[in-house]
Each structure stands twice: as structure tokens, then as C-alpha cells.
């Protein structure tokens, strides 16, 4: 199903996340990060941080902190199995640390298609703000929606 241009500027929700040391340590463990600055509070403080720093790609996860972060795709009729991550950009304004409460607002900024609609591109922009309302990070995401394989289409009928 082609994505309609009318979805541009659609607000796709967002989330609020209280950043805890535990969340950051789990992310470090999952990504093989052993640098003590990202795990050990004393090492973080010795490096000049007030607490464990939020690593650069973790800002992507703040927007996933809602009951059903992919609901906007389902609302657009997109099968999550056909979605690939195409591009990702981060513009960092300042650091964030454990103890901060970060919030996001996201919207779809563009949709386009290639190969006669076999591939569709959905661009989203997300602003991540601190508890003071100031921007911490802006993320830009391109999702690629592939035309579902024949087998999956059959099943969906």
C-alpha cells in the first residue's frame, strides 16, 4: 500500500524516559561497552561527568519509550516485517546523564518511493529535550518499507 503524502507532518507521538544508571549499564552490556566512564559512576565523575553519560545512540531509544512505539506504522498500514532502517542521523546539542528525564516529540517529515513503489521511504525527525525543555539531541531517521514478499501477502489475506 503506497504511503500517502498526507501523512507528512503527522505527529508520531513520543516518549518520556527517566534515565537510570541501570538502563545505561544494560545498554553498555548489550553493546559490549567496557569503557568504565559509561559503567562506573566514579570513573564518569573523574572524567568530568555529573553521572553516567548517555551514549550517543541511546537517544534513539528515548523515542521508543512508549507502550507501542511502532503503532504509527501499523496505523499507516505498514507491516513491521517489511521495514528496514535506511539512514540515521544524530545532531548533538549537549550531553545527558543518568538522573535526567528526557522527552521526545516526533513527526513524519517526508515520504517518497522508488522502483515503482517497491521501496518506500519514510523520513522522521525527533527532538529529544531535557527536563528544562532545552534540546539535547535531534535525530533523523529514514525507514525503508519493502513491498512484502508474495508469501507474506498470501498470509495477510
Amino acid at each position, binding site marked *: 500500500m503506497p504511503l500517502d503524502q498526507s501523512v507528512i507532518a503527522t505527529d508520531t507521538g513520543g516518549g518520556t524516559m527517566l534515565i537510570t544508571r541501570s*538502563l545505561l549499564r*544494560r*545498554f553498555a*552490556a*548489550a*553493546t*559490549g*561497552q567496557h*569503557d568504565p566512564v*559509561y559503567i562506573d559512576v566514579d570513573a564518569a565523575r573523574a*572524567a568530568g561527568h555529573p553521572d553516567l*553519560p548517555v*551514549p*550517543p*545512540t*541511546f537517544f*534513539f*531509544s528515548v523515542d*521508543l*519509550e512508549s507502550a507501542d*512505539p*511502532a503503532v504509527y506504522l501499523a496505523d499507516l498500514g505498514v507491516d*513491521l*516485517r*517489511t*521495514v*528496514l*532502517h*535506511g*539512514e*540515521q*542521523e*544524530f*545532531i*548533538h546539542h*549537549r*550531553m545527558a546523564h543518568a538522573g535526567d528525564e528526557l522527552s521526545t516529540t516526533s513527526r513524519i517529515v517526508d515520504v517518497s518511493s522508488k522502483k515503482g513503489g517497491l521501496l518506500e521511504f519514510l523520513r522522521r525527525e525527533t527532538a529529544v529535550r531535557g527536563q528544562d525543555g532545552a534540546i539535547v539531541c535531534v535525530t*533523523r531517521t529514514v525507514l525503508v518499507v519493502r513491498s*512484502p*514478499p508474495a*508469501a*507474506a501477502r498470501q*498470509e495477510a489475506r
Partner: protein
Amino acid sequence: MNIAAYEVGTQLPSLEIPPISRTTLALFAGASGDHNPIHIDLDVAKSAGLEDVFAHGMLSMAYLGRLLTSAFPQHRLRSWKVRFTAITPVHAAPTCTGTVSAIDEADGERLAIIDVRVTTDSGVETLLGQAVIALD
């Protein structure tokens, strides 16, 4: 190496990652909040016509983040952008590299542009992008 000495052609110390296990994919799904089952559930991957699960693109970008923050303090990272040029199969072992491609200046800040790349042990390039860092 001190980043003040960065010049065009400077290579960041590369980061070699062991083969990505299914456990890593499960832990990353939980830790990142990306619960898309295509990365962790073989049944779902097969229903989409795939032979197996594949790694989250953001897992590889997190590895690239480690490459960058091992080379310089994170607060120097101004922006970065990558394209995911191929999927990373489970069991692939990615290597992250970065090379300074330009020294620039903007808003009174000296900036280094770093070309970043991730390739698997099969030689497939999976991520390609650029990072902008403040030098002083």
C-alpha cells in the same frame, strides 16, 4: 592520539567486534527498546521470507559510537549520519573504522570530518557515514 593532532588521513584505532550472537540480539532488543521481532524471533523472520534473523542497524551504529567515544570525549561529537547499506546477518563479526577526511571550520570551531564505516568479516560493508567532531 591527541585529537588536536588530527589531520586529513588520520585513522582512528579500529574496533573489532566478535561474532554477533542471538543472545546479543536479544539483549540489545531489551536494552535499546527496539522490540521488532524480525531481529529476535526466527518464526517471524521466516514468515517474512527471510532465512534467519539479522542484527538491528542501531546495534552497528552503537558499535560505531564506541569507536568514536574511545577516540575522543563524547561532548566533542557534534553530529553524525550513517546509511545502512546492507543487513548484518546473525553471527557476522563487524569491524568499525574511521578516517579523517577533512578539517573544517564553522562558527569559530575547528572541526574534523571523519568518514566512518562498518564492514563484516565476509567483507560486506553494512554502514557508511560521516561524523563531525570539534577539535578545540
